[in-house]
Structures are given as structure tokens and as C-alpha cells.
């Protein structure tokens, strides 16, 4: 299934929130892109790596009760869209707090956590989640 390479390939981005920045227009992308959707050909070869601070604010969120098998043991969990200070918005869980404390607009920072229970190959995946500031 190629499960292993699927996970290690992205680990740098998931562990350190590695984004990239278009050398033509300056827009920051996470996950990284080989081509800037605004600059197209002008951006090719000019997308430069950029490590994000992991700080941002909650755009919106939900508390998930019905989850796929690898997340069942975490139920209920809070899933949010976070707008990072450098520009990109990403999807991640909010942890270390009760869902009732979560609000749109609240500040968060990234923390490094275990994400899924296991893939088909039984490995544990790590990456970012977010905690209220």
C-alpha cells in the first residue's frame, strides 16, 4: 500500500510545519506547493522553504463525535481550521482543553502530538495539534 513512504515523506512538514513561500509574489503556502496558484509559471523554481511559527487563530471549529477507526479513541475531539500568522490556513485538532472553551477567533499555538492510532502497517503517526494560548 506504500503506507510507510506516504507517512515519512510528509513528516518534515508535519513535525516542523514546513511551508514554502513564492519567490515571485511572496505568498506563503502550507502544505507546500511546487507552483504558486497566483503566479503559475513565474513561480516555478522560486518556491522557497519556510518554517512557520505555528501560531495563529481559530477560523471555525467542530467537536467530532462520529470518527473513523483511527480516531475513535480520541472522541469527542475538537477539529478546527487555524489561520496561521504567516497567512496559510490549515486543518488540525485543538487539544489540552475542553471543547466548551474553544471559540472562533481565539489564539492558538502548535504542539507536537501523536495523531493517529495506526495505519494499515501499524505505525504511529505524529504531527501538529494546537493548544489555546
Amino acid at each position, binding site marked *: 500500500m506504500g503506507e510507510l513512504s*506516504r507517512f515519512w515523506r*510528509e513528516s518534515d512538514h*508535519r513535525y516542523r510545519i514546513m511551508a514554502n513561500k513564492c519567490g515571485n509574489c511572496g505568498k506563503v503556502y502550507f*502544505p507546500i506547493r511546487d507552483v504558486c*496558484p497566483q503566479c503559475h509559471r513565474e513561480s516555478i523554481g522560486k518556491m522557497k522553504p519556510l518554517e512557520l511559527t505555528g501560531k495563529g487563530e481559530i*477560523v*471555525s*471549529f*467542530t*467537536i*467530532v*463525535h*462520529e*470518527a*473513523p*477507526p*483511527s*480516531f*475513535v479513541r*480520541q472522541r469527542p*475531539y475538537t*477539529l*478546527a*481550521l487555524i489561520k496561521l500568522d504567516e497567512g*496559510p*490556513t*490549515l*486543518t*488540525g*485538532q485543538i487539544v489540552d482543553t475542553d*471543547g466548551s472553551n474553544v471559540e*472562533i477567533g481565539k489564539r492558538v499555538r502548535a504542539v507536537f502530538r501523536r*495523531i*493517529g492510532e495506526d495505519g494499515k502497517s501499524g505505525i504511529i*503517526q505524529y*504531527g501538529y*495539534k494546537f493548544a489555546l494560548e
Partner: protein
Amino acid sequence: MLSNNVYLIGAGETKYGELWEKSLRDLAVEAGLKAIENAGIYSKDVQILYGSNSLAGIINGQENIGSLIADFSGIATNNIPAVRIEASSASGGAAVREAYLAIRSGEYDVVAVGGVEKMTDIFGNEVLDMLSSLLDREWEAFFGATPAALAAISARKYMKDFNVKKESLAMMSVNDHANASLNPHSHYKNKITLDQAMNATSVAEPLNLMDCSPITDGASAVVLVSEEYMKKNKLDGVRIISSAISQDYLALHSRNSLYTLDSTRAAARDAFMKGGLKPSDISFAEIHDSYSIYGLMELEDLGFAAKGKANTLVEEDIKLGGRLPVNPSGGLKAKGNPLGATGVGQFVEAFLQLKNKADKRQVKDARYGLLHNMAGTGSTSIVHIVGGE
């Protein structure tokens, strides 16, 4: 000078629901044969077949759907092309659109489209992981996102920014169930009250079970022909006036807005322009309300209401006797959402409505139907306008 107009001349489908006793191929063949019989042609007349399906590869372990359908429909030795079209939950609309283009191009005169999904061949919440393949697996689903969770994230932001109450979302589901109770093929036959819609088990807050389309098995099929073929063979049909498809970012977090579906706006604009029509011309709409919130967002992005104002339609206007009946079939919530079949099923409903054969759920004076099919959280939208004669 010949026109290259395209007509729908036949439609058929299985019952939608949890059909334990039926396999993927049983469903596809049943719908396909019904459509061909309904069209008044023979399977030997079909020149190309499009199968639409989303998840058979991971749910049923079956790919090569085009061949499967052709083979078990008994036309393997006709040696006609048979391919599968996949565009996630918009596979059905995409397949009908390919059929439309095949005829418009002049290459074919008779095209069959069969959409099928067999979703109950998998245990419990494993199907949720498979459904999450409609999303960006690495950057959404990996972190615990499901289609329902992302719809809920849109819903919360929408309700806050426009001060819309949860009741307005629930009304979409109430309407779907009311219409489905009149559709013999629907997954659910029960009407629900607003109270029931508001107080069901939570799935992803603020959405509950009654905001979410179910896990459904089913198949729908249609036959499309050129105007020339239709007239030469003294057949009767419903015209596909326009067809449009549009694309947006795959992941919700990459989009410009959590509640404006740019792909739907673009496809709708294109479909209305090509058809020379406007939203007020439409007699009924079948929209892709896989989650109740999408019903409101889509009504806005299709041009039926201003942004944040679809709640003004859900009380009266979208009912069967209302100004713009929405989802007379029962919609994705209550007719059901067998992904690859869903978009084709919208054409089955439109065919019945426009032929005045929709029985108890018949829209009065139905002239133009708008059909909207969408992939995932809005990455692809397909809009067709049918009818007119």
C-alpha cells in the same frame, strides 16, 4: 443543418437504501436495464457506456467498473467503449456531462450512463475513513477531518457570520424527508419534524444525524441521444439545455471562504449563460445537500438567494408547492446519497418531473430543472439545466 442538441430519452433506478441482498453489479445492471427499457431502445443500440462510481475500489475492492457494467448488462460482445468516470461524489454529474459532450461532439448518437455505489459492504465506522478519501487525505483526513466535520466547520462560521439559526439548516432535512416520503425509491420514507431534526444524535457539532446524508446503496441510469436519432426513431425526450463543471481547491482550508462555493458559483454562472436562462426561470432544483448546511450555501451560490439569506427560502419556498421546489426526489438526506449514483439520480428525477410522471411529488408546471452535483466539500461542482419544451 442538423442540431447537436442532446436529449434524455430514458431513466431508471433501483430503490436506494441499505440493500444487503444486492451486489454492486446487481444494482448497476438493474438500473441500466430499466433505463434502456424505459427509453424504448435495445441494449444493442447503445454506442458508448459511461459508468460512474466513486468508492468501489476501496469499499468493494472492485475497479474496472466500465467493463463490469457492460459485461453483466449483457453487452460485452457488442464491443462498445465502456469506461468509468470518477469525480468523487460528483461522479454521476460528471458522467452525464461526458455523455452529453460525446453526443455534442457528433461522435455518438446513443449513450448510456449508469451510476452505482455499494456502500454497505463494509463494517461500521470504517466507511467513514473511506468517505474521507473525498477530502485531502494527507492534510485534512490525516488530522481527523471527515466530510461531516468539515461541513460542520462551515456551518458554525456561516451561522455566526450571518446570524442564522440552526433551525434553518434543519428545515432542509425536514423538506427532504417530506419529499422522500412520496418517492417509492427513496432510502427513507418517514417525514421528520423540526424538533426531530434539531435533536438527533450529534455527529460533528453543530451538525447531527439529521443534517447528514446517510450511507446508501443504489444505482441510477439514463440514456441520452442526439436530436436526430430521437426524431428518426420517433422517440420522445427531455432536452439537456446546458452543462457546466467547475473546480476549486481540494481542501476546504485552501479556499477563499468557508461558505461560498466558488466552484458552484462558476458552474451555475456558466450553465445559466449557456442556456440563456436565469434563476427565476427554474421550476425546481435538485441540489447536492450531502449536509444540510450545503443546501443553504448552494441555494445562494446557484443564484437563488443572496449570500447568508437562503434561510428566507427554507420555510415555504422550497416545499413541493412552493416558489422553488428543492429536491422533490427527497434529496441526498432522504432519497439517499449512493455517491456514484447520486448525480445520475438527479437526472432520473428531472426526467420524471419534466415528463409529468412524478406522481404524488409532481412539481406543478415543471418546465426547467436545475441539477447540482458536488464533490467533497466543494472541490468540483456540476450544474445542468434540463427541460424547456
